[in-house]
């Protein structure tokens, strides 16, 4: 099973009496474009919080590149190649855009200013390098989230609703970026509510509802599924 980069097996997460994840198992292959959908509160963000180490899972196992990582703190997982963006952008607001990227560059990949500028060019933020990050627009903040995640040189990039609230032009722009990153060899997990974008982007989609996987398959298969239509698409 060498081409499986991420293996989540039977992972559960409870908050007090509330079960946010109930025995979820997914596997993501190296280089795959993987979509994660589901209604609000279905556990999407909880799942990626468990994968990235922001939360500790209560049961089950998470393996990355064959190594069990459930017990590792988040920064160790980032160093092993899991990077993520946050649904609500969390810039380092006292720093410039460039400095935001220097944090992961210094702590993870050992890069310097040149690498940061290169990533900013890829993402389309090159002219904002010296701007203080609390002066960016929404779409720029989303791009900064992705750029900072990229600065950690990840094998797996998790994009948590990078497109929510953006205009359709901006959505295509971010989609473009993610496709380009994937083409350069990075595995991408995309969490998104904008179905058009998920369907266009993903090779495989998983739909969560109430902490369980209710359907898994190609975008076409997902859209046609009765359970997904009832729980999420509202058909």
């Amino acid at each position: 099973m060498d081409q499986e980069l991420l293996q989540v097996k039977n992972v559960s997460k409870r908050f007090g009496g509330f079960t946010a994840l109930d025995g979820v198992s997914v596997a993501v292959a190296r280089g795959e474009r993987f979509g994660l959908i589901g209604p609000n509160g279905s556990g999407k963000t909880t799942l990626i919080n468990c994968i990235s180490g922001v939360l500790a899972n209560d049961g089950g196992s998470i393996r990355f590149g064959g190594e069990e990582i459930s017990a590792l703190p988040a920064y160790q997982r980032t160093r092993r190649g899991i990077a993520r963006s946050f649904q609500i952008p969390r810039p380092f607001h006292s720093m410039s855009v460039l400095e935001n990227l220097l944090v992961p560059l210094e702590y993870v990949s050992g890069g310097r200013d040149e690498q940061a500028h290169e990533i900013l060019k890829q993402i389309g933020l090159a002219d904002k390098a010296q701007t203080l990050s609390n002066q960016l627009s929404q779409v720029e903040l989303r791009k900064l989230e992705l750029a900072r995640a990229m600065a950690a040189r990840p094998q797996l990039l998790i994009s948590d609703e990078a497109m929510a609230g953006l205009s359709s032009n901006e959505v295509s722009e971010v989609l473009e970026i993610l496709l380009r990153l994937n083409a350069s060899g990075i595995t991408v997990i995309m969490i998104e509510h904008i179905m058009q974008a998920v369907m266009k982007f993903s090779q495989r989609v998983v739909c969560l509802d109430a902490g369980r996987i209710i359907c898994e398959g190609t975008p076409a298969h997902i859209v046609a599924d009765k359970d997904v239509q009832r729980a999420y698409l509202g058909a």
Partner: protein
Amino acid sequence: MNEYFFFAGYVVLQYVVLATAWNILGGYAGYVNFGTGAFFAVGAYTAVALYKAYALPLGLQILAGAAASALLGFGVGLLTLRLRGIFFSIATIAVAIVLETVVLNWHYVGGAKGLPTLRPASATFFDSYTVWLFFVMAAIAVVAVGAARYIETSWIGRGLRAIRDNEGAAECSGVPTLKLKLAAAALSGGLMGAAGAPYAQYLSFIEPSSTFSLNYAINALAMPIIGGMGHWIGPVIGAVLLGTVQQVVTVTVSSEVNVLVVGVLLVVFVVAAPEGILGLLKKWTRNFYR
């Protein structure tokens, strides 16, 4: 020169150390320490106990005081820095109260009555021990400011600022947040202990209530805020300014009024210039060149 200037200057330098030490954790990483008095006192009492027991020379007293307070910083950090937010701050208040109670009942170092310490009348190269202590504190201040400056301009400082801005994002950007916070707490505490270690020699006396005084906590927090927390020179400016004003007011008006001065200045700066004197300077120079 009049020996009084060295006597007063010592206090100002001591505040340079305390403010700089406080700022390493409070200013850079955003974790507020309300227990500066406890860290200061642990340094002072460690030095006194070792001086009484083994007549350790001043240099070793300072090292031991710094080590004890660094350990205290690490310990309090280990218990509370896993949690984000105000738990560390609350714990530092609690530690100050608990430790003061311990010392009040520790008779070997004088308990509540206090303990007079016989200090040498003069030191090598110096006619007066006060002048010698002034230069010792100056050396500690240089070390403290040098350490703060190094941290600020290095990857450590960037990591601490990332923690202050957004701890979750910092951790996910590969910053070992707990380790970094613990290191900062230990260094900050250690420097405060070093500032406290010569205290009993300076006064020829030590007693708990003035050593654990809340004034240290208030000043260590007010000086960086007034000077500016973003840059290593901020706490130095705040300490020199506020420390000098306090010395002058203590002599010319009263020692009660000097606490009032700190309070009023703190309120004025927090409301009108939250980035301190450095922030004001930056704003003015920007307008000037516009």
